[in-house]
């Protein structure tokens, strides 16, 4: 079975997974309004890193090396995840997978002259990380819009199942820029207040900076406290490149494969994409209902971090694992009154659970959807 070895989250809420979980459990968020940042004409609400803090942490690690902020985030997160293990990242039995949508896209701005323009290529950016760790393998970059973080974990599982590698280090990251914020603004997809997933008054998403790392290995006999990535699937709506399906088609189909014959009663919660756009949350409620999971508790974490894009699938998976370890279903911050057609078991309060499994759900542009089932102990897989 495919088992988590180590992890890390770097976000405005903390530099470790434990710090992040404690902050989220306490209901904290760093979503703030920014006026005039990056010379953008309209204000926006986002969860942004204190860049000086990252620079400081990176300098302590690697001195004055020439890396972009994005590259520092991915190297720092991978380094912190590797620290607690005996994995040799320089081994050819270790693969690095990077989950990102826009990488170093800020380098396309003609005013940016500090770095070689080739670093805008995602494979070249990923190579900065593998070179840092002296890893000899070509890094794999998964760029499937907002579902990249779950796709990257599925790629890791497959590489381990087929015996291609002994360890896979999956790093997800996106950092916000004028490019991304203005694009989502042009789509009228951004909320002017902290987002409200699944709420009747939801009005769009917020964006956020984060990097998150999860390291996997294959293990024959699983311990009771091991986290197992059981089964995942990626499915397309075959409907529209930027609007979710009205029948939740791809999400429902991905859920069905991930569930297989799992009894819904064994599942502590479904951690949704829950971006707080009108269409996404409605679509997820349809998919969850169709998959026969309407009685399973549901939550969404965008009210704490905004949408962290390439990091989201990994960050939200790790917080969900911590929550199950803590016998807790995390509150959906920003949610008050149900605003989707199908009844979902949502709460803005933390709730106790004794169950040992959860599903991570994501959807994105291009009509793509992903679902991944995780179980602690793995005896249920």
């Amino acid at each position: 079975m495919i088992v988590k070895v180590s992890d890390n989250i770097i976000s405005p809420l903390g530099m470790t997974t434990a710090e992040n979980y404690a902050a989220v459990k306490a209901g904290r968020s760093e979503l703030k309004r920014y006026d005039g940042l990056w010379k953008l004409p309209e204000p926006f609400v986002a969860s942004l890193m204190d860049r000086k803090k990252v620079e400081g942490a990176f300098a302590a690690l690697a001195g004055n090396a020439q890396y972009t902020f994005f590259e520092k985030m991915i190297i720092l997160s991978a380094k912190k995840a590797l620290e607690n293990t005996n994995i040799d990242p320089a081994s050819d039995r270790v693969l690095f997978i990077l989950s990102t949508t826009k990488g170093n896209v800020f380098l396309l701005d003609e005013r940016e002259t500090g770095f070689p323009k080739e670093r805008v290529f995602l494979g070249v950016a990923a190579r900065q990380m593998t070179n840092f760790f002296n890893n000899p393998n070509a890094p794999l970059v998964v760029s499937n819009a907002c579902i990249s973080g779950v796709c990257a974990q599925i790629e890791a599982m497959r590489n381990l199942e087929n015996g291609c590698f002994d360890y896979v280090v999956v790093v997800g990251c996106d950092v916000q820029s004028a490019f991304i914020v203005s694009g989502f603004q042009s789509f009228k997809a951004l909320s002017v207040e902290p987002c409200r997933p699944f709420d009747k008054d939801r009005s769009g998403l917020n964006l956020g900076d984060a990097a998150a790392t999860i390291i996997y290995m294959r293990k024959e006999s699983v311990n009771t406290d091991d986290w197992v990535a059981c089964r995942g699937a990626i499915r397309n709506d075959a409907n529209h490149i930027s609007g979710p399906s009205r029948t939740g088609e791809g999400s429902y189909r991905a859920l069905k494969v991930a569930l297989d014959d799992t009894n819904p009663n064994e599942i502590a919660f479904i951690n949704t994409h829950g971006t707080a756009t009108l269409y996404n949350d409605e679509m997820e409620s349809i998919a969850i209902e169709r998959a026969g999971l309407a009685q399973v508790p549901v939550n969404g974490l965008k009210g704490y971090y905004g949408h962290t894009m390439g990091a989201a699938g990994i960050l939200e998976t790790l917080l969900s694992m911590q929550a199950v370890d803590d016998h807790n279903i995390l509150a959906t911050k920003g949610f008050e009154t149900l605003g989707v057609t199908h009844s979902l078991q949502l709460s803005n309060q933390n709730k106790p659970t004794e169950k040992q499994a959860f599903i991570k759900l994501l959807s994105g542009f291009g009509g793509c959807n992903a679902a991944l089932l995780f179980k602690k102990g793995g005896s249920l897989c």
Partner: protein
Amino acid sequence: MLKVYINPDTVMVNDKPLAHNEKGSAMLTELYRAYIGDYPKFFKMDTLSKLGFVASELLLQAEGKVRFEPCENRAVVFFNRAASLQADAAYQATIQHPENFFPSPAAFVYTLPNIVTGEIAIRNKYFGETSFLVLEHCDEHIMARELQNAFLDPMTTSILGGWLDCTDENHFEAELFIIEESNK
């Protein structure tokens, strides 16, 4: 194995050249008009999507099976080097100058490489896996490994996949093929 190769000067279907007059992205439009012609959404696409759309259509015509039957057992898995660079640069031009700031959602949506996998899924009613992987260089060994891995999905029995790269309207390369998993 069925295969289509396209670069700005050359079009090959199963290693046989296909005649055309134009070059670059104009050639993609010429191919669309000559061999496809019933999908006006083509004209809204960025060059990466046009390239993937035309290459996949030529490939599926060569495959000769009944088209447009909904299915969940065919995956679409592409690889490239430049991700969505052409669309990224086009979008950047709309926000570069504060005095001429006109970000467009129609341009922004193509700033993700996997949009082309969605375009092909929509056209063909493919509900199966769609995936886009970016590499530092074209690497046959890695692509073969990842395509083999993609058959670990419990439903996938064939993959429309391959290399699909576009830096700008005059620099692109597609080498797409269909691989079947036997004995599944």
